[in-house]
């Protein structure tokens, strides 16, 4: 009941929510974006980063997101109201206050995240500047900070989705995400694009 009232007030103030798909890089954010667009939600993407070995179904990204930490004008994000946009977790603190955000936050085994990131770095010909053990400790703290952020900001709601659980139970995941996003998406189509063969770098 309280949540419904809160949602109505937020909608009155900010309009439709921006559906943000977030998480650490390589935690399943592209898969979730794919689910949302398959379900009928429009995505904010410039298609600049094309599908490749690391993300065969595409990245669903917009280059403007990368500059959120430095940009003075973030008003373009208002255009994402009622749509889905992918924003990695380290940029969530940069979200401006003039929108209402529903964040679908992907969680994945941290060692798998690191393994996948390291493979991607290698493919891109980039050095890995941080030891895995240090990165894991950082990510643990960072993920707590994200939860704190979601609790502290009145214009943010967050649903956490476990990547492995989404692979194992796509229909239930689609139902939960659809309900969170407003309940108007095609859950069968959402579940239908979950491809377990893309779950690489498994640790369990």
């Amino acid at each position, binding site marked *: 009941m309280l949540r419904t009232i809160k949602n109505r007030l937020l909608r009155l103030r900010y309009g439709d929510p921006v559906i943000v798909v977030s998480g650490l890089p390589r935690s399943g954010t592209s898969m979730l974006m794919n689910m949302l667009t398959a379900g009928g939600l429009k995505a904010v993407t410039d298609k600049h980063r094309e599908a490749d070995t690391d993300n065969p179904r595409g990245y669903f990204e917009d280059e403007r997101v990368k500059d959120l930490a430095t940009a003075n004008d973030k008003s373009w994000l208002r255009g994402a109201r009622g749509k889905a946009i992918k924003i990695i977790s*380290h940029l969530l603190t940069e979200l401006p206050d003039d929108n209402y955000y529903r964040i679908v936050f992907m969680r994945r085994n941290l060692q798998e995240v690191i393994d996948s990131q390291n493979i991607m*770095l290698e493919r891109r010909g980039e*050095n890995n500047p941080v030891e895995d053990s240090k990165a894991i400790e950082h990510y643990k703290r960072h993920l707590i900070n994200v939860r704190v952020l979601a609790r502290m900001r009145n214009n943010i709601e967050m649903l956490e989705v476990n990547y492995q659980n989404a692979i194992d139970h796509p229909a239930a995941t689609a139902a939960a995400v659809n309900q969170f996003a407003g309940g108007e998406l095609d859950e069968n189509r959402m579940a239908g694009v979950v491809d377990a063969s893309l779950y690489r770098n498994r640790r369990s």
Partner: protein
Amino acid sequence: MLGAKKKIKIDKDLWEKISVIAKAAGYSSADEFVIHALEKEMAEFEDAETDEEIRKKLRGLGYIS
């Protein structure tokens, strides 16, 4: 509300250890030691957001500019 304080409950045995350590470490009181320890722990969470090595990694992955 300026200067308002909250109280927390700490196990008696733990508090006695804290008091001994606080005194040995030169804190003016056990309270001061606890506040310092909590601030230090909080700072580690805040510092996690500005770690330059992690930012380099995210840049290398193509997720931030």
